[in-house]
């Protein structure tokens, strides 16, 4: 075996024989060298800040919370899972703790409060674990939903307000966890070191650790070897949530209070850290020490970028000019945009630098030696194979009503009708009226537009987590062009559409050519696009566009009026154009064209073949990379179209546009018959699903009037929690009712019939 330049961060991997080479050739050593160099650059660029020991200690302190979470995340990622919920778990555990502890709320003791918060944290870990193992929900969907639900719970519980209890906190020992100790550095650094040591030893030296590597490396083989891989993975999620809880306590310890923004985006920093630290997003590889170093590195990069440019400002004090050192203010949104890029860069390191042995190859080239052996295949995650159940044979011969029930879209359509009826029963005076119907249609259009694109992406077995963010990017671009650059509406719209499409193309490129799993590529885009959107508009709301632009979001009649070709009031045409809006028309055309393409053309069949069994499709000569690239690009187009419509309808752009829309859209497609594992889905179903989601949202904010004349509205802070639950329910019922035919099997069992074996 040729000696590797980059050591494989995994116990038992083939390493260089000499211990010196083992140390200096390791990935972690490379990280340290890189960090020292980066720090020196910082010192050179801004000696005032980086020159002091305080700076180093504050970087370590800021990194320690991420470091602690990264220890838990390492277990999850080595297991070939992913935990996107850690950031919201930090917020939730610290909020719960604060609500219990704060004198203005429950005024409990610190230890009891902490135990309750721990219980909540472990509850999240357990839920995640059970969802992804026994219930087979893909980890990114389960934990992403948990992220949004956790944030919703935090808002619901704290009503979005900050909680502080500085005085009470000072009497309790617990809070020293966040304080600076006698030696002059923060105790948080100690916590990180201790947790890293414990986690590192467990992962590298114990049975639990070996089980983790086996599970991530090859779950089937591990199972055959008698390892309970479900248990191992649940353990990983529990550990991850525990670490997030600890980080929550560190936050509380440091700030003696909590804001609803705590832990925001932490999942991204932590996942990037673990991957930078040498773990593979494809599981089976990673070391705790690397992850912790990765966390420090990411925080250091962030600091160098923020503080690297020393800025001076001249302030007039008493008629005298005084030069003050100011912090270079990063524009809002720059940080998430940048973190998204780090995540993608980090994920690309593993397949392209480590596996392809880029550095060893360069060294060999420089020395004029033959390049080392490269085993380049097997980088991409293989799609889940389809699996059989012989019961579906009954579908072919079903007739009449039963035939109808075999369509996967039926559930969505029935829900749609039931929900509408529910609204009608609750508020007969208002629900069926023109105003409400018109508003429902508008809300439906935004989700529906994106659901059309998502139907293709999910049909391929991919996912697009960035649609809401691309909506914002496109809206922000159009708004920025019109307001700040004085562009005419057409130019602005075309530019924004092109940019959104480009974002979709980047998604497609990363998922095909760079062979990243789509959820990672689009997660990176999620943060980048939203970050850039906020950046363009500097975090503010932009409004007052030319009225000709806003026509995209108005009724058709207004467009006709604008061009002076309005039909006479009272005629059929007038009423028709008065009832439909331009955006509904856009959706209608888009849905018909792309619905038919997916349903009955070779491209649609290619999408389904790709999602059903990508290798079989490849072997049959279908260019699956092209199909996936085009679908992800198309999804970006749909999202940017939705962005253009959004700002035209509201006549303004707010940075909040499209927030949480990814959940709505994914849920729509799944409810409408798509499968999260790919191979299924139709535009009709996706639109019916979008209608369901629209109605659910409308019902959740409906003012219900009870019989005694009082009215009642659901607190809006809780809406996220409901939408998240619905998404999880939709995925679960797809897996268990549609694919596993749980009900049918149960019925057969009850009737005493043996189900035909699936093999």
């Amino acid at each position, binding site marked *: 075996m040729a000696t590797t330049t980059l050591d494989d961060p995994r116990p038992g991997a083939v390493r260089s024989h000499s211990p010196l080479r083992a140390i200096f050739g390791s990935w972690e050593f490379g990280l340290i060298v890189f960090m020292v160099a980066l720090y020196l650059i910082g010192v050179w660029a801004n000696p005032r800040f980086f020159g002091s020991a305080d700076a180093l200690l504050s970087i370590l302190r800021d990194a320690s919370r991420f470091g602690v979470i990264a220890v838990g995340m390492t277990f999850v990622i080595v297991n070939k899972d992913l935990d996107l919920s850690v950031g919201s778990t930090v917020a939730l555990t610290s909020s719960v703790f604060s609500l219990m502890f704060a004198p203005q709320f429950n005024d409990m003791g610190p230890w009891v409060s902490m135990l309750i918060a721990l219980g909540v944290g472990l509850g999240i870990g357990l839920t995640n674990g059970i969802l992804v193992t026994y219930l087979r929900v893909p980890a990114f969907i389960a934990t992403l939903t948990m992220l949004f639900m956790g944030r919703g719970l935090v808002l619901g519980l704290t009503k979005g307000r900050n909680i502080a209890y500085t005085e009470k906190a000072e009497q309790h020992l617990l809070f020293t966890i966040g304080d600076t100790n006698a030696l002059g550095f923060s105790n948080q650094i100690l916590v990180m070191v201790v947790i890293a040591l414990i986690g590192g030893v467990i992962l590298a030296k114990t049975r639990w650790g070996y089980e983790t590597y086996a599970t991530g490396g090859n779950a089937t083989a591990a199972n055959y070897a008698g390892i309970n891989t479900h248990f191992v993975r649940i353990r990983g999620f529990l550990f991850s949530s525990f670490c997030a809880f600890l980080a929550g306590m560190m936050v509380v310890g440091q700030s003696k209070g909590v804001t609803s923004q705590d832990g925001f985006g932490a999942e991204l920093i932590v996942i990037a850290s673990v991957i930078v630290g040498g773990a593979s997003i494809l599981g089976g590889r990673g070391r705790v020490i690397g992850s912790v170093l990765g966390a420090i590195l990411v925080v250091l990069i962030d600091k160098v970028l923020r503080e690297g440019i020393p800025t001076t400002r001249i302030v007039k004090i008493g008629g005298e000019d005084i030069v003050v050192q100011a912090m270079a203010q990063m524009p809002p949104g720059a940080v998430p945009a940048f973190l998204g890029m780090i995540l993608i860069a980090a994920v690309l390191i593993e397949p392209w630098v480590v596996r392809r042995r880029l550095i060893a190859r360069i060294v060999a080239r420089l020395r004029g030696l033959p390049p080392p052996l490269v085993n380049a295949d097997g980088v991409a995650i293989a799609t889940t194979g389809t699996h059989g159940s012989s019961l579906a044979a009954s579908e072919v011969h079903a007739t009449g009503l039963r035939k109808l029930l075999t369509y996967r879209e039926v559930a969505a359509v029935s829900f749609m009708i039931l929900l509408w009826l529910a609204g009608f029963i609750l508020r007969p005076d208002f629900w069926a009226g023109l105003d409400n119907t018109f508003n429902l249609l508008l809300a439906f259009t935004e989700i529906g537009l994106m659901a059309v694109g998502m139907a293709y992406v999910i049909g391929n077995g991919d996912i697009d987590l960035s649609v809401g963010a691309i909506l914002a990017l496109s809206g922000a671009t159009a708004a920025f062009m019109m307001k700040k650059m004085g562009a005419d509406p057409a130019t602005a719209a075309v530019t924004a559409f092109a940019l959104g499409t480009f974002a979709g193309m980047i998604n497609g490129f990363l998922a095909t050519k760079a062979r990243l799993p789509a959820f990672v590529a689009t997660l990176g885009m999620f943060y980048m696009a939203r970050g850039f959107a906020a950046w363009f508009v500097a975090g503010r709301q932009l409004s007052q566009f030319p009225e000709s632009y806003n026509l995209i979001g108005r009724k058709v009649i207004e467009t006709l009026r604008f061009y002076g070709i309005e039909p006479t009031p009272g005629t059929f045409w007038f009423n028709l154009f008065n009832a439909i809006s331009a955006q509904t028309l856009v959706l209608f055309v888009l849905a018909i064209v792309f619905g038919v393409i997916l349903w009955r*053309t070779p491209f649609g069949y290619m999408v389904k073949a790709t999602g059903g069994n990508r290798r079989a499709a490849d072997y049959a000569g279908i260019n699956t990379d092209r199909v996936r690239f085009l679908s992800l690009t198309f999804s970006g187009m749909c999202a940017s179209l939705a962005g253009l419509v959004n700002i035209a309808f509201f006549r303004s752009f707010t940075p909040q546009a499209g927030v949480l829309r990814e959940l709505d859209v994914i849920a729509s497609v799944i409810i409408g018959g798509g499968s999260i594992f790919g191979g299924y889905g139709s535009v009709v179903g996706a639109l019916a699903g979008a209608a369901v989601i629209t109605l659910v949202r409308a019902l959740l904010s409906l003012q219900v009037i009870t019989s005694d004349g009082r009215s009642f509205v659901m607190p809006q802070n809780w809406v996220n929690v409901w939408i998240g639950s619905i998404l999880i329910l939709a995925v679960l019922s797809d897996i268990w009712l549609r694919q596993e035919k749980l009900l049918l099997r149960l019925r057969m069992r009850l009737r005493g019939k043996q189900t035909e074996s699936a093999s």
Partner: protein
Amino acid sequence: MTNQTPIIEMRGINKSFGAIRALQAVDFHLMPGEILGLVGDNSAGKSTLMKVLSGAYQRDTGDIRVAGEDVHFKSPHESRDRGIEMIYQDFALCGNIDVASNMFLGRWPRKGIFIDRKKMEDDADRVLKRLKVDVNSVRQRVESLSGGRQQSVAIARAISFDPKVIILDEPTANLSVMATNRLLETMAELKAQGVAQIIISHRLQDIFEVGDRVTVLKRGRIVGERYIKDTTEDEVLGLIVQGDRLEATAEA
């Protein structure tokens, strides 16, 4: 056998994966219309040999002739063009798609921009009938078929390319007895239509039921070759288990 040209002839094939020598100086041939069993222990190199033949892997050294002509397949698509179809265990079919669309995967007949369902279903039906494979309906999703029928559909798909050679890599590994029998019937039917077949299998009784000849691989070498009519399962088993020793004594 008469002195026909073999449809496939491989000479002195070597193939290594790093330090592993998966195939060493392998000579191999297949006559037209013949069913050949390829047997050997796990990791003997059976799949590798077949992948080298189909162009999924590239050989290190050696010659391959198809109907007497030298070939260098760079991908399975090229061998398909020369009438060689390999049926892979795990990526033959898409379970979520119906039988007819699976049989014409990637080359669906069209009418304008739309898929011509009628033509596709009729053609699929015809091929399945020819093979005497009985699926309820060609509109049925493949995942709703039993494992044996799925294999038959995979073979039917291969047939629709009009191949001269079909390679089956452990087709009966996950099949029930009934499904296996159905598959063996399909193979016999194909043979009657003049298609040569190579079947890799651990189940010698299957090979003895339909095969003409059996070739034994052990640790990347050919250790024996027998006509089914002249041998017994016990003798072949002996070759699989002790192949090296027998060869060694024969050479001494």
